[in-house]
């Protein structure tokens, strides 16, 4: 089984490209859903100690969903919006909904993450020629650190660091009102696929 420390720049570039294609599809899906233009930044791929990831915005009030990914790549997908941003996103679809209403609003937020994760993963799945399966989203509205801490539970059994493909999607004109972060964190044990692709054992 490969460790995070075995990853070279070639592997990271391959993951970055996968993230890039995935995020582009997710941005298109969100644009279609909202009938508004959604942009994305170039994804970053980093290996980060978990405690540093948590220190960044530990107390920020956010809404987040967590989706478990299984199949050819095992990992987790986390979508994070600031609480205000999540409400602004939801109000475009359900005018009276909020992320914390325990009804249509929260449900819409989960469904958005389901759709975005789905388009992200289906793009990665065809690029890597592997089958990926997503779980229904888990959902929480609270401190970012508290939510990420729980989301990282299983990953943390393998390593004190995490491999993270990070993308931001944002509204072109109203970046302050609508932007969100998408993290895809593959498990170290499922990196074998990336290694065999990079070594040319499997062709794309």
């Amino acid at each position, binding site marked *: 089984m490969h460790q995070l420390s075995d990853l070279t720049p070639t592997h990271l570039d391959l993951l970055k490209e996968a993230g890039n294609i995935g995020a582009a599809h997710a941005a298109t899906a969100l644009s279609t859903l909202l009938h508004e233009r959604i942009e994305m930044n170039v994804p970053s791929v980093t290996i980060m100690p978990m405690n540093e990831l*948590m*220190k960044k915005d*530990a*107390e920020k009030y956010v809404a987040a969903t967590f989706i478990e990914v299984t199949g050819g790549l095992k990992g987790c997908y986390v979508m994070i919006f600031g609480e205000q941003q999540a409400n602004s996103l939801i109000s475009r679809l359900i005018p009276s909904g909020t992320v914390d209403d325990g009804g249509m609003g929260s449900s819409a937020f989960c469904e958005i993450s389901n759709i975005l994760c789905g388009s992200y993963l289906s793009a990665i799945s065809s690029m890597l020629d592997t089958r990926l399966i997503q*779980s229904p989203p*888990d959902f929480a509205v609270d401190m970012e650190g*508290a939510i990420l801490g729980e989301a990282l539970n299983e990953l943390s059994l393998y*390593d004190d660091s995490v491999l993270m493909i990070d993308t931001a999607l944002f509204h072109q004109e109203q970046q302050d009102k609508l932007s969100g972060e998408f993290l895809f964190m593959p498990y170290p044990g499922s990196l074998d696929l990336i290694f065999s692709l990079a070594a040319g054992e499997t062709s794309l």
Partner: protein
Amino acid sequence: MILVGLSEIKFAESPETLKSLGLGSCIGVILYSDRAHCAGMAHVMLPDSSLSCSGSFSPGKYADTAVPALIRLMTVIHGLPMAELKAKMAGGAEMFRASQRYSTMSIGKRNAEAVGNQLSKYRVPLVAAETGHDFGRTIEFDPGNGMLVIRTILRGEQRI
């Protein structure tokens, strides 16, 4: 103020305080001495190191390694008598609402139990605890007065 990040163990002497941001299912456990006005805090993530799939990890990560490491920090490294030590803890929430992943028991609850068991194993009295529920906590401990302040986003502030 000294920040105690995920899986870390830190020591502070009054007037310094120990702080841990955004605890979800994690537990912040504090051992302190009223007489010496000093304390150690661990930010525990998981209940048992036998779950680990990697050879090396920080001792602060698992309840069964964090509590002994915290005791060693207080007694061996900082020379405090074992009989003086008292403990407080907070955290162990279940953040995700419709969690299907931990169908048996939430990891937060298991963390709180594991820390409690370790403390009784080493006969350190747990004088106060605020655990469970479904909200995140930021905690700050002042070794000067032995007070643990717990702050939340929607549930106000609590002192134990």
